[in-house]
């Protein structure tokens, strides 16, 4: 087995993180089988507190809908938004960072000015603005989160690429006559991946948080509700029904925690030297 994977599989952080994510993903996929009843349908009396009725053991909301089923169904939106926006942001970040880092000079200058520009904009307000412009939907939320979250990736990739560009194996490839494109794609990028992957897992986490925050403020997609949407929708009833906002928040917490654990574990696995330091 690949030593990185081996290290990963021995790391309790990775195991905990992975297990939580697996549960979340599975429940997102299999929600319709686990809870065959329509999650939108009024199932029983509204405001049923948790742990009273074994059939609805996380309680019901103001329309009598099962919270537990809701959590399972809504995992999908949260996870998709987190993943999709991160993938998009990482792709943009890699392209921009790689071009800037590899070619340097004025290309670097221009691209980094653009990056700086996006870092100067107050990110969260800007994301909200994007959602408002595109009108709230899953896609617009993904785009908004992506737009505000690529700059750190670009910076990371840029600095990695810039340092790799002068490494001997890249010079060797140049001297051997490989094209710029091939050198970037085949020689340099694979060597920048480990920090990017570690960063990406943290980005998924923060994308989920951002999506939750956008939904919380009422700019979520009502057809594809997320956990954040659930909290936003139940924030006003917090006095009557704490469980309506408590459980979705807890689930977000767990998933984000899991992603962070996984991110740390990945970081450690890619950087065994650093990891060891922590344990001294």
């Amino acid at each position, binding site marked *: 087995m690949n030593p990185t994977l081996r290290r990963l599989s021995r790391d309790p952080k990775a195991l905990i993180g992975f297990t939580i994510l697996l549960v979340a993903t599975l429940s997102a996929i299999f929600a319709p089988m686990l809870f065959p009843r329509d999650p939108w349908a009024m199932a029983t009396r509204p405001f049923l507190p948790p742990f009273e009725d074994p059939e609805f053991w996380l309680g019901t909301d103001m329309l009598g809908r099962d919270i537990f089923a809701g959590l399972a169904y809504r995992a999908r939106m949260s996870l998709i938004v987190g993943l999709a926006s991160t993938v998009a942001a990482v792709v943009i970040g890699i392209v921009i960072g790689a071009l800037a880092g590899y070619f340097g000079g004025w290309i670097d200058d221009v691209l980094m000015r653009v990056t700086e520009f996006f870092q100067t904009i107050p990110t969260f307000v800007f994301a909200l603005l994007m959602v408002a412009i595109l009108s709230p939907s899953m896609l617009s939320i993904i785009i908004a989160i992506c737009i505000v979250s690529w700059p750190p990736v670009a910076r990371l990739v840029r600095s990695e690429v810039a340092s790799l560009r002068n*490494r001997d194996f890249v010079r*060797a490839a140049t*001297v051997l006559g490989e094209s710029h494109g091939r050198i970037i794609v085949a020689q340099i990028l694979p060597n920048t991946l480990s920090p990017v992957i570690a960063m990406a897992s943290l980005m998924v986490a923060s994308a989920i948080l951002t999506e939750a925050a956008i939904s919380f403020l009422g700019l979520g997609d009502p057809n594809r509700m997320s956990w954040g949407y659930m909290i936003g929708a139940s924030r006003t009833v917090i006095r009557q029904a704490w469980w309506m906002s408590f459980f979705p928040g807890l689930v977000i917490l767990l998933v984000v925690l899991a992603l962070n654990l996984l991110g740390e574990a990945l970081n450690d696995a890619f950087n065994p030297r650093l990891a060891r330091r922590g344990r001294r």
Partner: protein
Amino acid sequence: MSAPLLSIEGLTVALPGGGERAHAVRDVSLTLARGEVLCIVGESGSGKSITASAVMNLLPSDQLRITSGRVRYEGEDLLTLSERRMRRLRGDRISMIFQEPMTSLNPVATIGVQIEQVLEAHGVPARERAGRVQELVRAVGLPDPESIVKRYPFRLSGGQRQRVMIAMALAMEPDILIADEPTTALDVTTQAQILGLIRDLQRDRGMGVLFITHDFGVVADIADRVAVMQNGEVVETGPIERVLGAPEHPYTKKLIGAVPRFRETQADESRDAPILSVRGLTKIYRSGGLVRGVREVRAVDGVSFDIRRGETLGLVGESGSGKSTIGQCLLRIASVDAGEVRFDGQDIAHATGRALFDYRTRAQMVFQDPFASLNPRHTIGRSILAGPLAHKVPRPEAERRMARLLERVGLDAGAATRYPHEFSGGQRQRIGIARALAVEPDLLVADEAVSALDVSVQAQVLELLREIRDEFDLAMLFITHDLRVASNICDRVVVLHRGKIVEQGPVTEVFSRPAHAYTQELLGAVPGRSWHGDPQQGATPTHPIPVQQGATT
């Protein structure tokens, strides 16, 4: 002999499981007397540093555990001392300096403060400190003591920083100084100065010095006694004359045999027209900009030379003299600012597109660091094939070439499917050579191709390069800072100083009758010049070279 100042008895340090050997250091016993310099030599990874750290009780205890042994200092076992008592000994009775002068000082504190902290830590009253700092700075020969103490480390050169380190180490006039390769990172000339300084201070103060190095030349210059380590064990100890003159252990013999020494090579003058001819090559690095003002470094300044087929041209000079930059300009990794580079009659200094692409099959490079020059994520096969495939050589043909080359550089065919980390440094350098040869070049630039290797491996790779040059009738530009290595492989040599050529000519001539003062200084600083020991051939120098003393200022 009186009771030793320091004695290491049966020291064994375990390595964390999973490594290639169970012990970093096994059953090491050494003694150090007052006023004596004991050198520990051995190849990389042989356990020299760990032995030194164990004495200071500075081992990372969670990874490296001392399983047995004692370190006695004045009768006390240092290994059983409490951290508090040990702390009082460190820097006071026993001091240590390290290899890397650039990183060993706190970047955000002035050097005066850092020296003073040592005094403070060991109870020197505040009013005496400033004076003592001045004294120390003076003693280690730093210029302008009053103002230099207010400087931050980044404003000092490597040699100056190493002097600061020495000042700190000597601040409390310790009984024992441990020096872990303190000069390896320095230029030969600076190295000679620092070695001289340590030796002088040691004589003045009667310290015992434990000096770690992998360079037998340094050993010859400084040691009273030598201990040779291999794989964590001490294989031989003895007075310097005996160990260098008549080594007993086979490993010691092998090491000493591999030490490069000046050698006379007969250049073959009757060759055809040069394949590469460089005229007035100039390279300027610009940095800064509008605000800071453009800062220009003339890294290469009007350099001209020729190389013929089958000939090796050496490029020597101290660090920063522009050697690598020339190599990069020739291969067009760096752009050329002025001058011309004619290859086979064609100017390639400003070639682009097709012409440059074609040139890439004819000029190749072997890099210094065998670890950094191979993509860690590509198999060896992929790295070697990259060149031919980029130049549209059909795959079967490319693979045939690769098989042939792997065999030629002494690797089995199975190597192609493995990754770089599965090879040793010497093997990787061989792979680097095979990769360069895979496009069948006419010119090979080797930038410090053997500097990162241990002496015994170095000798093998040099031999390989020599054979290949003859076999393929290559023109070779050999860049090195080690004059002894240069004398071993080059036909002609170019001496570079601050981007300019100060002297060039047949290697024997330049090294035996250096015309330029700088060349003389360089030669004089080569460590171990008084020792030409070669156990097989007797201790006679193959060629008399005038020794220049007193390079220390």
